[in-house]
């Protein structure tokens, strides 16, 4: 069973922050940097932050900080 994760995924109009299992992205940001910045606090709530490259592969996996 996977732990709680939030993914940063490429979209046509920017970068989506999406919790695993959610139907929709929480929000779409224009740049990846902003998406990472906004998603980072979720790590304190027990979420791993999975940052994807444009092709879907893994750029970085930041563990939950809680």
């Amino acid at each position, binding site marked *: 069973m*996977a732990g709680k*994760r939030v*993914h940063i*995924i*490429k*979209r*046509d109009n920017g970068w*989506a922050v*999406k919790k*695993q299992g959610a139907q929709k992205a929480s929000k779409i940001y224009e740049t990846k940097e902003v998406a990472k910045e906004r998603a980072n606090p979720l790590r304190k709530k027990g979420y791993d932050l*999975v940052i*994807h490259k*444009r*092709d*879907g*592969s*893994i750029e970085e*996996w930041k563990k939950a900080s809680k």
Partner: protein
Amino acid sequence: MLNSFNTNVFINCPIDEEYKPLLRALLFTIYRCGYIPRIATERSDSGESRLEKIKELILNSQHSIHDLSRIKCQERDEYYRLNMSFEIGLDFGCRFFHCKDKKALILEEEKYSIQKALSDLIGGDPKCHYGDPKKLVIEVRSWFIEIGTEDIDGGSKIWDDFNVFYADLYKKKLGEGFKKKEFENLPIPEFNRHIKEWIESDD
């Protein structure tokens, strides 16, 4: 009940590092749309000629996806690769002279490139992915709908699922002791097996 001929999709695409991200997304999308990708690298037997293998894949696949992205040389003195053009010819030949009930999708990386380089295919309605895996997912999913496949999730959902699948597999493989480089170079049969298992476990 469909037999494997009806669900097999012959893939004719570049086999190189640059194309690998597109191929991964393509394999996932085909499985996710309920079909089975068939590709020359799905098995390796030095005793089997590549041409025989391709012939068998074409004969046993009702569907085919031909990505003619390498229709233009990138550098001076680079040889133009003819494999993809040759294989689409074999597949279309099979369709014309042997099995009329075949369906094909032609993909290109640059809009109108096929029209310029292979004008015999004008009217074939190629779809363009611009070298972007997400666009490829959307185009391939749309094609499966256009040929009559029902109950397929939207392209964005399939793209998100691909990202989640990739993360799950990354964690699993690194947990098993794989190095990142080994993970990035998983052989096609192994990658395919994991896609199938992931989709089945998600059902």
